[in-house]
């Protein structure tokens, strides 16, 4: 692929699609991990996997509008942007993962992604790439807000239950 403005934007969007697909896979794995251990946590991860797939589908739609159908997925993205991960290696031993922590795990991943795209937007001088990164950053911003709302909802429910 030549480094024309259209191509760099296209590559950035494609990378975004693949990251969403990879993360959906990671959330699937976490869903299975907590199934039968803590089903409420597993449900949160299942929802996150489904959201990642929706995000991926949305990015694919945008890609399709501009460049036609995206190529079949190739290599896994090398970057660790937005890759969600368990914070605590002993979470399963000490049963320390609850719904709130699962949401925070997702939130942190989305915040990292947003920061990554913001940094890349500031760093690049290529206007087309800047546009693509800005668009991806805004996209992540909506995910951040969504998860923040879920967390606030959860905390609110917990507070009222405590009262």
């Amino acid at each position, binding site marked *: 692929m030549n480094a024309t403005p259209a191509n760099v934007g296209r590559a950035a969007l494609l990378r975004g699609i693949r990251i969403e697909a*990879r993360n959906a896979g990671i959330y699937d*794995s976490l869903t*299975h*991990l907590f199934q039968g*251990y803590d089903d409420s946590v597993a449900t949160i991860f299942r929802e996150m996997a489904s959201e990642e797939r929706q995000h991926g589908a949305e990015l694919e739609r945008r890609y399709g509008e501009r460049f036609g159908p995206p190529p079949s997925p190739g290599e896994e993205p090398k970057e660790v942007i937005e890759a969600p991960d368990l914070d605590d*290696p002993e979470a*399963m031993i000490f*049963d320390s993962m609850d719904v709130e922590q699962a949401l925070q795990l997702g939130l942190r991943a989305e915040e990292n992604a947003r920061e990554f795209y913001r940094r890349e937007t500031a760093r690049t001088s290529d206007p087309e790439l800047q546009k693509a990164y800005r668009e991806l950053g805004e996209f992540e911003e909506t995910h951040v807000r969504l998860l923040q709302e879920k967390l606030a909802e959860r905390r609110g429910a917990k507070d009222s239950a405590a009262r």
Partner: protein
Amino acid sequence: MVTANPIAEATVPTEALEPPWRFNLFARWPWLKRLVRMRSFQFLVILPNLFMFYLFIISALFGTPVGNRNIIIVFVWILWWFMLIAVLVPFGSRIWCTICPLPFFGDWIQRRAVIRVRTGKSPGTENSFFGLHKRWPKRLSNIWLQNFGFLFLATFSALLVTRPIVSAAVFGILFLVATVLALVFRLRTFCNYVCPISGFLSLYAMTATVELRSVDKDECLKCKSKACIRGSDKGWACPWNVYMGKLDRNNYCGLCFECVKSCPNDNISLFVRPFATSDVVVRGYDEVWKACIMLVLALTYSVMLLGPWGRFKDWANVSEARNWAGFGLFAAGQALLALVIFPGLYYVSIRLAKWYARADSVPTKELFLKYAYMLVPMGLLAWIAFSVPLLMVNGAYIISVASDPLGWGMNLFGTADFPWTPLRPHWVPFLQVPILLTGLYYGLRGLHKVGRRIFTDPAQLHRSLVPPAALLVGVTLVFLKLFIG
């Protein structure tokens, strides 16, 4: 990070907080990786131990009831104990758990296989397990049971280390409990939460000079399968429920090497590292109390078995002296010291540390948990110092019992009549003192290291270290008094 004086120019140098070196053993010796990747590896290392345990049970049931003539007493409580505390833990982390036969039957039933892997969909894993696979109760998901279990066994140690039948009964019960729990609960519930030996292994494994870790944490971050904890067609889901991607301490890694087999990215390796330097984070009250209990038991054992006070020995040895009041006093005193008095003294030292450092913004809980690390190397080295004379004074029994394991008058290797000859008993204090001082050194060093993570102002840091360091020095002096009089 907290500073009492925000305009203080001096700060703790950040380079001092760099992680210590580590050396990748699998990269250096690929044969070692090939060995642990063999599906039969763990079975092959457990098998001889299983045979030994069988022999121990037989010797307890049919052999002589005289402790120092029976292999279960001599091999377990002299040889095994010394090897475990002085060699296996400091140099091999939880390598004992690799070869421990106690969970063997539970694993076998759960997996319906000794060597091969079964793929399937037991909840949370990519493997097929037999049994109810239930979740262990949340309120018991800690090491409190192990703390109380070990303290209980320690209270009856005089019986345990002198009566073959009592030792066999305890091992039999542990085998049974491990197997039943494996049928009901998922994975190694017994090892994680119940086994009294596992409790102190987890604590002292923090000091070990080896660690099993991921080579590149980013690989784990990107990993979709999380095969280390979920299992795969190459390896069983981590029996200990540990996720390798973030593993940063040895405590709950039982070195079964299943993750080395299952990792799709070939990203797990065994590393050598400096002693008592890498894992310095104590995470919960259960771990703090474990550190307190172990240190106090090292002290009370030293009083009972090495000290000149025959009365205390009689109190502990209730089966011979029949002094039930004395035994009650000993049991209550030991429990009070381990569970209340010593943790209380440590708490007071933490309150004093906060006051002296003027560290009002540091939560007492944080300081209480983090500074407790100083008790870990100190406790381990105190146990080693206590165990040295056991081997030097009673080691000759190992040679004679090897030839006559059941005390029936056999002479398998021609050493049955080897006389009881203590090995250079006059050297004992000269070995105990440096061992103890090494524990003090690593305890203080660990305290300083942990403190640097909390305080950025050196003056505040040093003030905060004084009271807990004074406690540690006080403990060392008590041990020195016991060892050298």
